[in-house]
Structure formats: C-alpha cells, structure tokens
C-alpha cells in the first residue's frame, strides 16, 4: 500500500518539505512520518501539522492537497521510489534528485529539477522559469535524468544543462538552453527568443520555426538519425505526429561567441 499524505492545513507562508522523499520515509510508519520536521517559514513544524499520513511506504508516496503551491522542495535529493502529486506544487520540485520518479498531476512553478543528476519528473500542467537549471552562481545545471512537461514552461529552461533530457509539450519562454554545455531539449511547441545563447554544446530541437540569435548560422537541412529514436521515446508520453518522425530538420550551429559546437534543429517539413 502506498503512503498517502493528505493535506489537512494550508500553510500561511512558504513551506520547505525536503523530508517528503522516499529516502526519508522508507521504513517509517504513518505516525513516524507525521513526526518528521518541515519548515513553515522560519519555524520548524512537523509533517503531521499539515498532512495526515495513512498507509506505509512501499515505494510510492501519494501527496494530495488543495494548497500545495507553497510547498517547496518536494522530492529534493531523492534517489529512488515514486512521488505522485495531485495538485499544484511549489518551487524546487525534485531539486538535485539522483533517481526515482516524480509525477505531478497539476502545475509546477519555477525551479523544477534544478541540478538533478538522474531520475524522472513528469508534469501534466505547466512549469515556470528555470526548469532543469543551475542555481544562481553555479556553472552546471542538470546533468542527467529527464524532465517532461506537458504544458508550457517559461524562461531559462535548461540553463547551463550538462546532460539528460528536457521535453516540453507546449511552448517555452526566452533563453531556452542558455549557457548549455550538453544534453538535449525538445520543445514541441514554440521557442521564445534568444534560444541557446552562450551554449557550448548540446541540442535544442523544436517543431516550430523560431527566431535565432545572430551568432547562430545555418548548416544544412537533414534527417538526423537520432531524431527517430528520441521521438519514439517521447511518443510514450506525448502525442508525436507521424511527420515529425519522417521529416527533415534545419540545423543551425552556435553559439559562435562560445565554442560553436551546439546545435538548434528546427522541423522543416
């Protein structure tokens, strides 16, 4: 039986719940779970003040509530297991996670999976700024794992990303893949402006045409071999049109102010 955490009280101020991870809850009974600490603003409270726990952890945590928007750091640092969330979640979801899976049936906000190194995050709604990014001041963002967002994301998706996969079903904001070092970002909808600014390596793929910076130059139009493999992988989660699988892509290389080894691929029909 999964461990069910149902919200019983709404936080008045931001809450940091980095204890809500499989790693911390393994082997704990419902009563023990309720005694674990979380931060409500500057005060240390226990999970039981805001959530009722039932069942016991068997690999899955179910988190449900009407006001989870202020709950930050859900699944931070997790290495295994699954967290299923019903509702909108707060910042830093799955921050630095190394394994396991987080499924959100709702929206997420800024900082989904920052600096994660493995595992999987799937958001059924939208996410905010800085999905899969480096924290301010850090030079490397996400290094592995995958983030799938069915809706839209905002700016700086994959900032300084060095590995892994980010796929966005809707549109992305500006500076997608900024300062990217490696890895892959798929945006099935439209890209914002200034995609890939400062990128060294890595691939950014979109199914729509996009304005590019003057430091990106056109290389060729072709059918990259890996595209079919990736799109088939994505088709388990997103509806991928047949023509994308068969189509060719315009390749632009950049960013020329950096190594010029990154690529942006735009579906050409």
């Amino acid at each position, binding site marked *: 039986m999964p461990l069910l955490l149902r919200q019983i009280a709404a936080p008045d*101020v931001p809450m940091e719940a980095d204890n809500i991870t499989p790693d911390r809850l393994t082997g704990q009974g419902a009563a023990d779970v309720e005694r674990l600490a979380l931060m409500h603003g500057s005060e240390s409270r226990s999970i039981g003040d805001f959530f009722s726990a039932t069942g016991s952890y068997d690999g899955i945590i179910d988190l449900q509530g009407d006001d989870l928007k202020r709950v930050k750091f859900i699944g931070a640092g997790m290495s295994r297991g699954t967290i299923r969330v019903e509702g909108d979640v707060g910042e830093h979801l799955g921050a630095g996670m190394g394994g396991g899976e987080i499924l959100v049936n709702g929206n997420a906000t800024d900082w989904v999976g920052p600096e994660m190194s493995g595992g999987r995050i799937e958001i059924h709604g939208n996410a905010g700024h800085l999905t899969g990014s480096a924290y301010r001041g850090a030079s490397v963002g996400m290094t592995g794992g995958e983030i799938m967002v069915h809706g839209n994301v905002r700016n700086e998706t994959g900032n300084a990303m060095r590995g892994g996969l980010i796929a966005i079903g809707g549109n992305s904001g500006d500076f997608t893949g900024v300062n990217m070092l490696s890895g892959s970002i798929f945006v099935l909808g439209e890209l914002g402006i200034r995609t890939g600014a400062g990128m060294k390596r890595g691939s950014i793929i979109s199914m729509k045409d996009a304005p590019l910076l003057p430091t990106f130059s056109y290389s060729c139009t072709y059918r990259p071999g890996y595209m079919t493999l990736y799109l088939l992988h994505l088709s388990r989660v997103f509806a991928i049109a047949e023509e994308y699988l068969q189509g060719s892509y315009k390749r632009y290389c950049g960013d020329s102010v950096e190594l010029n080894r990154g690529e942006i691929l735009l579906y050409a029909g």
Partner: protein
Amino acid sequence: MSENVKVVENATCTFCGCVCDDMILTVDMDEKRITKSKNACILGKAWFAEHYIEEDAPVAMIDNRPVSMEEAVEEAARTLVNARFPITYGLSDTTCEAQRQAVAITDTIRGNIDTTTSVCHGPSGIALQGVGESTMTLGEVKNRADLVIYWGGNPAESHPRHFGRYAVTAKGMFTPRGKKDRHVVLVDVRRTPSAPAASQFIQVKPGKDFEVLWALRALVKNRRIDPDIEEETGVSLETMEELVERMKNCRYGVLFFGMGLTMTRGRHFNSGALLALATDLNEYTHFVAKPVRGHGNVTGADNVMSWQTGYPFGVNFSRGFPRFNPGEFTTVDLLAKRDVDAALIVATDPASNFPQAAIDHLANIPVVCLDTKATLTSKLAHVAFRTSTYGINTAGTVYRMDDVPITLRKAFDSPFPNDEEILTAIRKRVRELVLARGQARGATGVSRAAAPLQ
C-alpha cells in the same frame, strides 16, 4: 531670511548615485532650511531646497496614533518577532550603518532581506555573479578613459554631473583636454537629452540590446555576423564593426549601463552580455563596465548586504543561514504571492510604486515603516517612525556608484532620530525577545551570525 546663517563646506548630495561630495551649503539655522547649494546640479538643488523638517510631526505612530518612541520600538520588535516570514525592504536611501542594523535584525528574526536593487540593477547583480565584473573607480575614468560608452541610460537627466565630474568633460591626468580627448558613444532606443553630449549616438530598436551586444561580442572574437542584423536591430553591421575597432584600439574604455538594459526583456542576460563584452575586450586593451546606480546609497546597500550575508539582495534567513535566490526571495515576488506575514520597510515607499497585487498584500499585513516624511507606506503601516534625513541631518557612510565609500557631514540637526538609532533599538529588543523565546523552548533561538554585533 534670518541672520543666523551657517555655511557647510564639502557637504555631500545623496540624491543620486554620483554622491557629489563638493557641495557648499548655506543653511538658515532659524528657519532650518538650506537656502543655497553651490555646485549642486538641478536635481541636487531641488533635493536641498525642498528639504524641510515637519517639527510638529509625531516621532512614532501605531496605527496612525502618536506614541512614544519606546512604545513604538516595543511594538515593532514584537510584530517582527511574531512573524514567520517577515521581510525587510528598502535601505537604499539610508546610511551603511543603518543598513547593517537592518541585516542584523533580519538575521535574528530569520526573515528575508531585499533592497531596491531588486527593482533596478538586481539583474546586474545576477549577471555579476554569473560572468564577473571588470571594474574601476570613477576617478580612473576621469583620468584615463578615452572611450566612454553609455548604454540604456540618460545621465543628462538622471545623473546630471556624471558627464562633468567623471566621464565626459572632466579633465584628468591623461585626458587633459576633457571631452576633446574622449570619444563618447550613447546607445539607446531613443534620442534623449544626453545625446548632444555624445560624439556618436547609436539607436537600437526597442528590446534588441541583447542582440546588438551579442553581435558585438561575436565581432570582437572575429566571428562572422550577417548584414541582415541591421533589419533586426536597427544598427548596421558597418556601425558595429566601426565601434568594435574603436573599442579594441582605445587606451582605456568604459561601458556605463542603465536601467534601459536591466529592466527590459532579457534583464540579467542584457547586463551579462555587456559585462561579458567588457571582459572579452580585455584581450585587446583595458576595458571596464559599471552600472550607473540611481538612489544615493543603493551601492552601499549592495556592499553591506554582500559583506554581511555574502549576497547583494534577495537574501533569505528562514533556515538560519543566508540563501540567495532572486525571483524567489525578492520583495515584489514575495508580496505578489502573498508569502509574507510582516514587513520592515526602511526609507522607501513601496505602496506608491509597487504592482497593485504587491500593494494589496502590504495593506493586509503588519508593516513597520521608517521614513523622513509621511508616505503611502507610512499611512498603511502598523508602526511608523519619522526619521532624520541622511546627508543633511545625519552623518554616516554612503557608497558612490563605483563602490567608493564617502563620509557624510550633517548640515544641521533634526529633532527626529536617524534610521540607525531606531533600527539599533529594534534590534536590541528583537534579540531579547528571540532569546527569551529560545529559553522558553530550551534552544538558543538566535542564529550564530547575529551574535557578535554589540
């Protein structure tokens, strides 16, 4: 005018980030007014001329009812200590000494501290952390700079003496002929009153600064740029190439940038692109970059915050140690998300200039406010203190926009206490309350960083 007149030499104007320290003020001591401010620019003259002290205003109020200072300090301290997510905001128009006390209070109550930097050059702060800064003092610019570029700012109207004292007509050791020894470029989206002072004006299409800066960076690195850049940005490839040649071949180049860059789409990436351009140019010559800061001591706020917490703005102490995350811990965002349950506002008036959602929340929470005059914020405040004006009635330290500390002289006394005195009193009381609460809980309750301040 009375006979009782005092002349204060080498006084400092704290109206803008130039912090000119060569004012000669004539003070009518009976009227308690400054009647003449020699050397001040039009903004400085207005700043001094409009200064008056409302002597019969109460020193402190609780819910708009006059109270004693002690009562107000007690109520302010209790309000802040009882909050779970209190914020401290403002701080750019006060002395470094007061700023330091505000940081100590926030640390003790495990609150969130942010300055007006977050609504002006905060993006530059993020960019500095990301790409670094090739920096200087304005004295160096005066003595050495032979290429001066202003990007996204209108100093003729916002910092009137910037040209004359430091960067355009100023005569220095290696620039004895002033403007004749310099090439001055103004880059902006429209022709402003600063344009006539410049040797060259480059007009960029609105929202295209990043593209132009990025193309300049590419050209500095000898990369190819397509001539259709003109269509997109409004600046021809030829103009860019010429500018790049000029930048590479100058002796000492400086890039000044304003809020036209930091507050338009792209924000910290715009500042970052400009800082990176300055860094790139150091392959060829000496090149520096500097934000042109607005408020008198906003630079001091950055310095004090960085010195005390490690970060310039948007710092949170909820967990007992400082964390920096603009967007999450910046005031407008926190208020708009209604994440805050009390506020300490020092020397600024967010109720008059914040987005409506943020103001609405400010009206719903207890606010402690320190200001030299009645403001919209002081009116909605739970506890409001009336303070003396820094630079006129209060001495102390401020930082000029180039991070040079300047000591203030006071011209005459005010009946009101200054920010530092009030904040120190609040800090002491806050500390007692937090310690008492900690003892009741059997813990220390005070984070260690707060302890050493006497």
